[in-house]
C-alpha cells in the first residue's frame, strides 16, 4: 500500500512513517499542503493521511485542490482542530483524532479502512 502523509509536524510524520514501515507499506512524506499535492499527483497513493490544521494551506484546502481519484482520504486532527460538519463537507472518507491511542492499532485500523474502500470501488 502506498501511503502519503501530509503533516507539518516532523515527529508526527516520522512516527507514522515508522509505524507504517513496520507493516511494509510504502510511505511518502509531505511537510505542507503544496508539497503534498505535488506528491499526490506524482505517486497516486492508495491512502492519504492529511492533517487538518496546517499553516499556509489547511488540510481542507488541500482536499479542495485534489482532482477526483480513487485514493482513500483520512483527515487527522487534534481534538479541537475541526468540527464534524467541516469533515462531512470535505472529500475525506474518514477522520482520526490526534493523539493516537495506540499507533500500531491505528495502522491496523487504516489497513481495514483501505480494504473496505477497495471493496466499495
Amino acid at each position: 500500500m502506498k501511503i502519503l502523509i501530509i503533516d507539518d509536524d516532523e515527529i508526527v510524520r516520522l512516527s507514522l512513517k515508522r509505524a507504517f514501515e513496520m507493516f511494509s507499506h510504502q510511505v511518502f512524506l509531505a511537510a505542507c499542503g503544496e508539497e503534498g499535492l505535488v506528491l499526490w499527483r506524482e505517486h497516486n497513493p492508495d491512502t492519504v493521511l492529511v492533517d487538518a490544521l496546517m499553516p499556509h494551506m489547511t488540510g481542507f484546502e488541500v482536499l479542495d485542490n485534489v482532482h477526483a481519484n480513487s485514493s482513500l482520504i483520512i483527515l487527522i486532527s487534534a481534538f479541537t482542530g475541526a468540527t464534524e460538519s467541516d469533515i462531512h463537507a470535505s472529500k475525506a472518507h474518514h477522520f482520526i483524532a490526534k493523539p493516537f491511542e495506540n499507533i500500531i492499532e491505528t495502522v491496523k485500523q487504516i489497513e481495514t479502512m483501505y480494504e473496505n474502500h477497495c471493496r466499495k470501488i
Partner: protein
Amino acid sequence: MLIEGQNVLWVGKFDLTKKNSFLVSNNTFYIFFDLTDPVKDFFSQWADKDFKSLTSNLFLNQLEKQFGEISAANKSNFLKTFTQDSSVELVFTYSKGKNLLLGDLVFILNKGPFKFNFIEKDEINDYISSRSQKNISTPEKMSEPPEDLKALSSSRDDLESQFQSQSSDIKKFVDEQNMRLNSERRLVKLIKDLAELNDIDDLLLILRKELKGFNYLREPLLIYTLDGESVFFSQMRNSERHEWYQNIKLDWPEKFTVAKGADLANWVNVLNRPISKLVLLPFSLDLSQRFFPKAKALLIVEDLSLADQQALSHQFLLDRQQILSMSLDRILIEYQLTLFSYRWEKVFDHLKDPVAVIDANYNVLRSNQKFLNHPDMQSFKCYKVFANRDTPCVGCPMEIEPAVDASVNPERIEFNNKSYRLLRNRIQAPGDQQVLYFHRYYDETQHDQILKTLFQLEKMSSLGELSGHLAHELNNPLTGVMALAQVLQASKEISPQIKKDLNEIETGARRSLGIIKNLMNFTKADQGESLIESLESISLDECVERTLPFLKTALRQHRLFVDLKTKEYLVRLVPQIFQQVIFNLIQNAVQALSEQGTIKIWSEVDEKNQRVKLLVEDNGVGIPPENINRIFDAFYTTKKEGQGTGLGLSISKQIVETFAGYMSVESKPGVFTRFKIEFPYEGSLK
C-alpha cells in the same frame, strides 16, 4: 316680620325680649335687618336704579309693602332724621359661619344715602350698648339762683370763670401731654413686645391686645404673599390662629385706605363675609422683597366705628404701621430662612454620597447623615465622625488650598478597606473672613474592586487563550513521542529493559496529553454552543477527578483526603463549567491554610431525596460568623490584594444554581470551613 320700637325697626326674625330696653338716640334712626333672601331681594331692586337719589318716602313705602306696616310716629321720625342729617343706620345681622356672597349688596348700599353695618346675630347686644353709651350723657338742667345772689356772686363768678378757664386750659394741656406720653409709652411697649415675638401667632395676639380698646374694630386679618400668587390669610379666632391660602390676584393698596364702593365689594367677595367698612393697612416688606420681589402684606380691619371714632382708630393704626411692618418682615424672613435651610439639609440628606462643610481646622459645621458614620458628642472633627480616626485621613487634601469657589483635583482617601475620591470646594462669602470647605466623598471601593477584577479577568482570559495555544502546540510533539515509543516497543530487536523504558516514555507522554486535553476543555471558552447543548450526564466524582490534576502543585504541601462514592449517580451539567467550581473551592481551601493543613473532599448520596452531595473541607482559619453571610457576595474578599477578586465564590454559587444545584457553607473559626454542593441526580447506573 316687622317690629317697631321708638326710632327703631326690626325687620325679620329677632329675639327681642331684652332689646326692647333699647335706649334710643334722638338723632339716629336704626333699622335692623335679618339678613335673609327677602332682605337681599329688597335691596337688589335698586341694583340698576339710582339708589343715591332715593327719596325717604319711596324707601318707606317699599319697606311697608314688603315687610308690613309702620306706625305714623316712626314714619315721621324716620323722615325727620333722614332729612335732618341723614342719620339713618341700617344694621344687617347674620349668622356666624354662613357663606354669604354679599358683594352686590355692599355695592348697592355704598351708593345709597344710608349708613350701614354688618354684625353677627350674637353681637347685637354689644352693638346696641356701644351705640347707647354715646347718648347716655344728657345734660342736667340747674335750677336758677335767686336774683340778689346773682349780683354778689357775679364778680366772684368772673374770677372763678377766669380761673377755671385758665386751669382748664392747663388741665387740657396736661391731659394732652399725658395722652401723648401714654400713647408713646404704648408704642414703646409695643416695640418691645414685637421685638420678642417669633411668629405670626404672636403678632396677631399682640395686635388683638392693642386693638382691645376699640371694641368697634373687629379681629384683624393679616394677608400676605411672597410670590404674588399664593396669598396667605391669617386670623386669630379665639386663641387659635386660622390660616388658609388661595391662589388669587389682589389689588394691594399702596397706602392706608378705607375701602369703598367697588373696592369694598371686591374685598367682601374675597373674604366671603358681609362687611360694611374695611380699613386696609399695607405693610412694607423691604427685607423680604430683596429675596421675594413680589412680597406684599396687608392688615385688614373691619371697622364698625362711627365717624367721630374713626379718626382716632385710624391714627392708632397708622402710628403702628411701620413697626408692625418691620416685625412682620422679620418674621417672614426668619421663617423663610428656616424653611430654606431645612430644605437644603433635606437635599443633602438625600444625596447618596457623604458631604460636609468643614472649616480649616477639620471641624464639621454642616453635614448630611451619610457623613456621620460615627457620631460623637465630644468631637466635631471630620476624621472622627466620618472615619473614626484620631488624626486626619491619609490623603486628606486639607493642606492644598483651592482658589475661591474652585475645586482641586480629586484626592483619594482610604480607611477601613474603603476608598473615597474626595472633591473639595472652597467656600468664602464676600466680605467674610472665614474660609470653609465643601467636601464630597465618592465611594470608590466597589469601583476599585471592579477595576481590579476586570484586570484579573483579562489576565485570566489571556492566560486561558495562552494555555489553549500551548496545549495545541504540545499536542503534536507529544503525539509523536507517544507514537514513536509505541512503534519502538513493537520492534523485535529491542531488549526488554529498553522496552520497559520506552513504556515509561509512552506513559509519560500519555499522561501529558491527558493533562493537555483537560486543560483545553477547561479553558475552552464557550464556542457558540448554548449551555443546554453542552449539558452532559456525568458524576460529580468524575468532575472532581478531572479537576484534581490541575491542583496537584497547589495541594502539594497539604494532606489531601479524597473519598468519592457517587460514581454511579449522574447529574446534568456542563463539566467544563462545573470544574471551575471545584477548582475554586479547592483553591479557596488551599488559600485558607497558612501552614500545612488538611483538605478533605468527599461525595455522598442522599437516596431519600435523590440528591448527591460534594463536600470540600479545610481546617484553616475559618470564617467569622459576622462575615459568613457575605461570603457569596460579589467582590467580597478578605484576601490580600492580588490573591483574589472576591468573585470566585459568587460565580461558583451562580454556576451551581444554574445547574439546579444548591451551595452552602458552614464554618467554625479556627476549626474548619466546609462548603457543600448538592445536586438532584437524574439516575443511577446501579
